[in-house]
């Protein structure tokens, strides 16, 4: 590419240019960091996660003494200090949706897919960059929430340490869950192509379908409910008090089921990306 402006390119067929997966990932990283909206959404997600987690730790800590024995039994200090993630997951999911739909709403997708006409590398690169950036952010956020929460809970002698049994799994599980929700957002965004539609689908899948399912006969609920992406994915890190606890999948089976949802959505998104006109 020396003196590129004057190269009689029309006459030469050899070009040093190539599309590679690594290059498309670098491009997606540039896109990710050069948008104010991505950075703001990520910052909002971090703040929500930490602040609400702290509120949970404060409330649960001061209420602990008055809890029933069953509630005390199911209380988990590590999980409690990460409960803000249950709210922040929406922000992570929205970020995933936006990464895809902002390209469609602005027309950028046509420039992107013209540069990478095989298309699929773009989807893989978006998922990879998101997983690395958002996964790392979620992990750091969860560690901050954890330590802040334990500091609050230590006032009631309820704190656990990072090396306490199950703690690492809970922090890791929450981090993986948040990342998986974001990837689901990317897949839904690629399928629906509109920001409003993508967010609606995400909210429906995470927050609307579970309570709707509760309206069905109880045998259905107990059988299907635990396989929904949110319920399955939360099995590794959320501790509910009450009968709900019994119906949970085991932690990693649950996360595995959530991964199947994510993989299924990503595969459909990939097929549609190849088949549909951009």
């Amino acid at each position, binding site marked *: 590419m020396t003196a590129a402006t004057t190269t009689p390119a*029309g006459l030469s067929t050899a070009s040093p*240019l*190539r*599309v590679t997966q690594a290059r498309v990932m670098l491009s997606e990283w540039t896109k990710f960091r050069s948008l104010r909206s991505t950075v703001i959404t990520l910052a909002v997600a971090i703040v929500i996660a930490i602040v609400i987690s702290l509120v949970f730790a404060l409330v649960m800590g001061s209420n602990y003494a008055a809890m029933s024995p069953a509630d005390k039994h199911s209380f988990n200090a590590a999980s409690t200090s990460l409960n803000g993630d249950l709210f922040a997951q929406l922000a992570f999911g929205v970020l995933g949706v936006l990464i895809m739909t902002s390209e469609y709403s*602005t027309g950028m997708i*046509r420039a992107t897919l013209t540069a*990478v*006409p095989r298309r699929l590398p773009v989807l893989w690169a978006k998922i990879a960059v998101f997983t690395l950036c958002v996964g790392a952010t979620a992990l750091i956020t969860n560690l901050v929430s954890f330590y802040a929460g334990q500091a609050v809970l230590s006032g009631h002698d309820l704190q656990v340490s990072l090396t306490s049994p199950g703690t690492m799994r809970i922090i890791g599980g929450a981090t993986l869950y948040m990342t998986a929700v974001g990837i689901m957002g990317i897949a839904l965004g690629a399928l629906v192509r509109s920001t409003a539609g993508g967010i609606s689908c995400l909210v429906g899948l995470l927050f609307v379908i579970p309570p709707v399912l509760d309206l069905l006969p109880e045998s259905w609920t107990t059988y299907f409910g635990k396989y929904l992406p949110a319920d399955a994915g939360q099995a590794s890190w959320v501790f509910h008090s009450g009968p709900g606890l019994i119906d949970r999948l085991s932690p990693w089976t649950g996360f595995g089921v959530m991964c199947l949802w994510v993989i299924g959505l990503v595969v459909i998104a990939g097929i549609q990306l190849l088949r549909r006109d951009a």
Partner: protein
Amino acid sequence: MIEVDGLTKNYGDKTAVDGISFAVEPGIVTGFLGPNGAGKSTTMRIIAGLDAPTHGIVRVNGKSYRDSRAPMAELGIMLEAKAVHTGRSARSHLLALAQTNGVPAKRVSEVIDMVGLAEVAAKRVGGFSLGMGQRLGVAAALLGDPRTVVLDEPVNGLDPEGVLWIRHLLKALADEGRTVFISSHLMSEMALTAQHLIIVGRGRLIADTTVEGFIAQASGTVTRVSSPQADALSAQLSAANVTVAHLDAETLEVTGLTAREIGIIAWEEHVPVVELSTKRVSLEDAFMELTSDAVDYRSSAGTTTAPAGAR
């Protein structure tokens, strides 16, 4: 080189492109003309691999664009101005595109300078004027130093200086041996910019001609002649490739002979001539006539039995 062969594109039951075939040669600027809705943008999207053809094949530099290993070196395309995330700076936008194909960052600065956006490269694209957006689109198209350049309405929104700039740029690109294919709905602009014309209307190919040929055809072939002995003159002018139309008792319109030839024949045959003039048609009028014909033809011929577009 772009080859379009029997291209048809349906969106639902609406036919946007209806069996068109043409080739765009390297080394010259080829204009793609047609009224709005003629199928120009659809054809360009298919060339770029964004839309899949319903029937037919499109090749860029002899290959299917979707299979190219170095797409940005094969084809640089601007489909519409501001196909850009408005929240990103011009430089970040170009850098992200460049990185997909391994175009070095140095080249990003080069194209920014080339299109005259150096001063605003760090600004968010959302604040760009239409003309600046066009320049950014051209910059993106040139990033990979492509062998084929396709620009949809590149003159749109440019000020007179910008129009001049794009004309020189397109000519320079063609002179370097590249294939240059630009669309417009303005015949007058294309007459100044392009050497070859592909004219479409309602998704069908209407003409595939040189600009010179189009101008000659549009303005030079019809001659009006008036004579008190119009019938006698008409008989004398008759020949295999000459058509004579009687406008009124004294006036004829002749196609296939120049005014000079008619004048000489009239003198030789002792027929008085009181008016002899070449009918001047503006390029825009000729273009309108051509495309409105296509519309009439299409609506009267129906859609299922109409023959494939002329070559």
